[in-house]
Structures are given as structure tokens and as C-alpha cells.
């Protein structure tokens, strides 16, 4: 048994103690309010917008839909610890895929996860893979371009 107010979490490779979390607190709120990791954003808190995307045991999920106290044995990776996203971040900047930036961390986590599974995605694959991440500024075109360019660069580097 585990108290849902005081428990341990492993985030970005470090195990930390959480004290006094609210009953039923989501992983998103604990990351932001207890650990100061504000990369994951909260908007809808119902799984619709993807701005809270993180990896839990290497699986892409919405942190607003994870009960924090149930993730004690899991490895959580947030945008702050996602070192393999450097080139994705750079491509977003270069392609102009960032405007207000609210959706960006979630999109980078989702895109990085997708690119780890697919080396040569076409724009339709990318749209489908990123369908769980909403952006109200860019119109998505430049986000798709950024992901295509990372895939191209990585393939180039691999050959």
C-alpha cells in the first residue's frame, strides 16, 4: 500500500520524495507543483490537447491522466530529461514551428517518441501520430515540416 499523499517517484532518472500531494493528484500536477518541472503544460486535463505529454516507462502518455501515486514503480521522462530530443527542438526552431510555445514541449515529446519508432514517415503518418497534440497557433504545417526534416537528417547521419 501506498499513501497517495507521500510517495516516491522516479523522474528523469532521479528518485525523489513527494510530500503532501492532493488526493487524486495527477502526475502532471505533481511534476509542476512539487518538482518544479513546468515543461509539461496543463490545459484541458482530460487527455484532449497533449500539452502534458510525457513518457512513462518509455510509453507516450498524457500526464494529466496518470494518477501520480500509481506511478511509483515507473520511470517518468519529461521534456526536461529527454536528451534525445535536441535535434527535434532545433528543427522546431529552424522551421518556425513554434509561435506561443504552449504546445511545444508536448509536441516535442510526442514527435521524439514517434521518430524513435519510424525512420521515414510521410506527412500523413506524422499527422496521425501527432493527432493527440493540439496547437492553436501554427496550423501544423511547419510542425510537420520540422518532423520530416529531423527524419531526413537522422537518415542522412545513419548512412
Amino acid at each position, binding site marked *: 500500500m501506498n499513501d497517495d499523499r507521500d510517495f516516491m517517484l522516479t523522474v528523469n532518472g532521479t528518485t525523489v520524495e513527494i510530500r503532501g500531494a492532493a488526493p*487524486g493528484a495527477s502526475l502532471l500536477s505533481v511534476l509542476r507543483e512539487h518538482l518544479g518541472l513546468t515543461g509539461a503544460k496543463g490545459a484541458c486535463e482530460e487527455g484532449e490537447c497533449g500539452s502534458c505529454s510525457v513518457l512513462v516507462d518509455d510509453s*507516450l502518455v*498524457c500526464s*494529466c491522466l496518470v*494518477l501520480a501515486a500509481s506511478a*511509483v514503480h515507473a520511470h517518468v521522462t519529461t521534456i526536461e530529461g529527454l536528451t534525445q530530443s535536441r535535434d527535434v527542438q532545433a528543427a522546431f526552431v529552424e522551421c518556425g514551428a513554434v509561435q506561443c510555445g504552449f504546445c511545444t514541449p508536448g509536441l516535442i515529446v510526442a514527435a521524439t517518441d514517434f521518430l524513435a519508432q519510424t525512420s521515414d514517415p510521410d506527412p500523413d503518418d506524422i499527422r496521425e501520430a501527432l493527432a*493527440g497534440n493540439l496547437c492553436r497557433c501554427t496550423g501544423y504545417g511547419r510542425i510537420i515540416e520540422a518532423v520530416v526534416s529531423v527524419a531526413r537528417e537522422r537518415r542522412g547521419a545513419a548512412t
Partner: protein
Amino acid sequence: MPVYLPDTTEEVLSLLAAHPNAMLLAGGTDVMVGINHQHGLRQETSIIALRNVSELSRYTIDDTASTISLGASVTWTALEEAPFVERVRCLAEAARTVGSRQIRNAGTIGGNIATASPAGDGVCALVALDAQLMLSSATGSRQIALTDFVTGPKRTSRADNEVITSVEVPIVKGWQSYAKIGVRNAMVISIAGVAVVLNTEHRSVSIALGSVGPVIIRATEAETALAQQIDWERCSISADDLDDGARLAATAASPITDHRSTAAYRKHAVQVLTKRLVQRGLRDLAERGPS
């Protein structure tokens, strides 16, 4: 609020026996939406998280057996990628339409069934496939047809001390598919969903309709009519008989008008989807030739 993280089904059952009011938590994609809306939980609620119960995430398929057994915690992503997808194609197709990658990585088939939404995509496919559920409690186990388990919108016959352990899905010879209408290609709760199974061995048709009634509906009259009118040798049907069958399917629907769509559009959608799926199925079967 205690959160229990059992490792085995046995432990889940004894926890449920000791805390019959506890809430089961699988992927959390339905439960957490509710908790976030209420701004947390009452201090006394206990939660039994199934995350570490690895046996519930397994599936087994026995080549000689005629069913696939899916653990309740099998996720939509696992279903899409499973080696047996071709044999339960309509369920795999339903899985692919659920939410987004984030939702499919977390959401489970057991959670979809226990939520018992009339819009549940997995439930619709499983109703067409005549799936059976296995439930266990500390005092025993039972098997029940999915259609009997779901008693109303978001209502089931699950007792407080029971956990769904698996879904038994018959492997059908023939053709099957799932189609859904929504406002965009991803992340939508269906406006109408239709699952069609053409069973070439028994020369029967199953049609399940989602989002057009308080529960998932079987269009039994359309099933009987179409099964009679299909020329099973040639895998074909006359245009008139197909239209009649699709119309009967729409008659079985009893949709409402809500913020997602109107009753009239939903009925129309059922007719169009049924026709399209049966047509596609017969064409695919004819191309495949006698098996």
C-alpha cells in the same frame, strides 16, 4: 486515500474483498478525467491500480482453439500491434480509431468494457464478435456474454468485488471490419459506429451499432435478412437486397440528438456504413476466392 499496487490477480481479489468500495484503475483515461473534473478525490476513497498486474496484460491464442483470450489490461496499442490482428480485424480496426497515441498507449480493453459507454469502439467490435467476459472475485469466477454484462448506458452487472480478468474473442472464418463517423479523423467520440462480421463458415452476418442507442445494439433483423440474401457461394448480393439490409440496420438504431449530432444523421450514417461494409466485405471475400 490509500493507493494499492498489487502484482497479481490474486492480490487484486483479496484487496477487493477487503475494500469493496475501492475503485479499480487501469489506464486511467476514463477514471482520471472524472477525478480531474472533481478537482481530486475524497480522502476516504481507495484505489486499486492494476498497472503492475502483468498477467492481466497478456493475451493467449491457441492455434487449435477457436478463441483469443485478451487480458483486461491489454492496451489499444498492444491490440494494434498484436501478431493475431488479422484474426480479430474489426477489434484491431476499432483500436486504431481510439483517441490518440497517448490515449491508446494507456487505455485498455477492460476499461472500455467497464465504462460501458454506448460510444465505446472496442465494445462495439466485441459485441459483433460475440465476445464473452471472464470475471473473478475472491469467492469465484464467472463467464458472461458481453451483451449481458452491459445493462445500460455506463451500467454493468459487475459486482463491487469483481474484476474483469479477460475477454474471450471467437475467431471467425470470413471477413470483419469496423467503421466510425466523427468530426475529424482522430480523437473523436463516434457519432455512429458499425461493426460487421461476415461468417462464411456459418453463413451468418453480425452487425453491431455504436452511439445510436443507450447501449451497443445488434441489428438482428438486418443480420437475418442479409444472411439470407447473400449468395455465399459467389459472395455477392443484389443491390436491392443490400439496400434493404442497410435500411433494416438503420431501423434497429434508436439514436438521440445531442451536441455531437442529430438522430436523423445518425440513422443515415448507420445505413451508409452498413451498406459500405457489407459491400466491401463481399468484394474482399470474392477476390480472396473459396477458402
